[in-house]
């Protein structure tokens, strides 16, 4: 294991049966993610990109090929790999603070309070500890979910269209927050999205998946510190768009 192959996906294929019909969701995926890299996976809906994340995270173990994270073959879900789902999945009967401490194991009360405050601060929320999820807006709830997924300091964070359900303005703000978190926490991130702008803005690398069966069509290296207004950004966007 080295830092270049922190996540190593080798010849990954996944198929499932729907009423006697064999559907190939993913075929021959080979992908390596370096430590502290941010990789965006992009593709049309139904191309198997969410399935790919579920396999990497260990929620789906029925596949052929190899998935290695930090030198270990993935056999099941666990704390070293965080996951942010498309919906926030906060427990509706717990307050914001309780939802975050729900993720914590063996921590004292004062540590819990400190961590909740620290991670809410990281996602840019203050004074919402006592709120119930239904009292939050979609963007706030997703930020709490991100805080919850980070509080155990996972080495790898998987994001499954985390901003897909948010309005355009909230999305932009959340992208900045994600970028800030990535820089601060030094977490390796693998994000699935269907938004080209988002993929370029956040990723060091954009991986384009083709549809049925899902295979890697092309990879794009994103120059560092690229901004939406740069011509390079627009050029990159056009290039990816043409490959779609």
């Amino acid at each position: 294991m080295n830092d270049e192959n922190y996540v190593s996906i080798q010849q990954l294929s996944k198929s499932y049966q729907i009423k006697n019909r064999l559907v190939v969701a993913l075929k021959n995926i080979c992908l390596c993610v370096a430590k502290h890299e941010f990789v965006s996976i992009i593709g049309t809906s139904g191309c198997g990109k969410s399935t790919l994340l579920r396999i990497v995270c260990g929620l789906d173990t029925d596949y052929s090929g190899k998935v290695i994270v930090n030198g270990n073959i993935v056999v099941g879900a666990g704390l070293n790999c965080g996951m942010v789902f498309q919906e926030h999945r906060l427990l509706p009967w717990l307050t914001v603070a309780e939802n975050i401490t729900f993720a914590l194991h063996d921590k004292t009360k004062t540590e819990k309070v400190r961590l909740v405050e620290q991670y809410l601060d990281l996602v840019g929320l203050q004074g919402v500890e006592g709120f119930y999820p239904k009292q939050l807006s979609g963007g706030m709830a997703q930020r709490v979910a991100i805080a919850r997924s980070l509080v155990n300091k996972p080495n790898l964070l998987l994001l499954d269209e985390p901003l897909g359900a948010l309005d355009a303005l909230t999305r932009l703000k959340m992208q900045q927050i994600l970028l800030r978190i990535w820089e601060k926490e030094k977490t390796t991130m693998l994000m699935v999205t269907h938004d080209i702008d988002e993929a370029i803005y956040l990723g060091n690398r954009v991986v384009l998946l083709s549809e049925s069966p899902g295979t890697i069509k092309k990879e794009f290296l994103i120059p560092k510190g690229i901004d939406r207004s740069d011509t390079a950004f627009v050029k990159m966007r056009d290039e990816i768009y043409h490959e779609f």
Partner: protein
Amino acid sequence: MEIVVRLAKKYKNKFFFTRQIKWNSVILPFALLVIWQVIIFLGLVKPILLPSPQQVMKVAMEMIVSGELIRHLSVSLIRVLEGFSLAAILAVSLGVVLGMSAVVFQLANGTIQLLRPIPPIAWLPLAILWFGIEEGSKVFIIIVGAFFPIFTNVLDGIRQTESKYVELVKVLEISRWRIITKVVIPGALPFIFAGLRTGLGYAWMCVVAAELSAGMTGIGYMLTDARAMIQTDRVLVGMLAIGAIGKLMDMMLQLIEKKVIKGKEFYTGK
């Protein structure tokens, strides 16, 4: 004194009995009372079959003053409280165990479902032989009656646990105990309370049925006793008393439900 005033202010409107009565909810009982009165006034039914509301009221007052009503009612109430709480503890814990373990479910569910169709009152002959004619058999019948609706609802509630939370607890490596206390039970609470409320109704049905059939105490016994002496007014007082106390206990359960279930808005219709 100041503290009392402050507490009173704080808890004002907190209890259901201090809340202002919604006038809508008294229209129907009032209408029924009027119809009852009209039937009596027109002489459509013999007073021995249906005494007038005033008569029932008068007898009720007499029975309250003499302590007879309270005495019988409290005997039944204690039986219901004992039987219902035992049934609730048993049903919730068994429901959780069966709901959380596929193996235990396969082992035990068939047998439990086989016992379910047996009417609680059919257990009475056996219960009297086993636990005696007064307290033991009555409490046993209540447990049998209240157990199944609670148990079935707890199990159904656990089955409703959403797969998105099941995935979440896997990713977060949450221990089994915390899955039960923080995810499964809170999610099943609306079902559990539906079961508790149904179970409480069954508990009252069972205690009255058991007292009607055997023994010399309780509100059910009072009903048979009154019927034997053709005191229809006393029968009606007994029935109304059961209805009132049952409703009161149901309201308490609803109040607890609203306190216990968090982060949820209850739909109350349009």
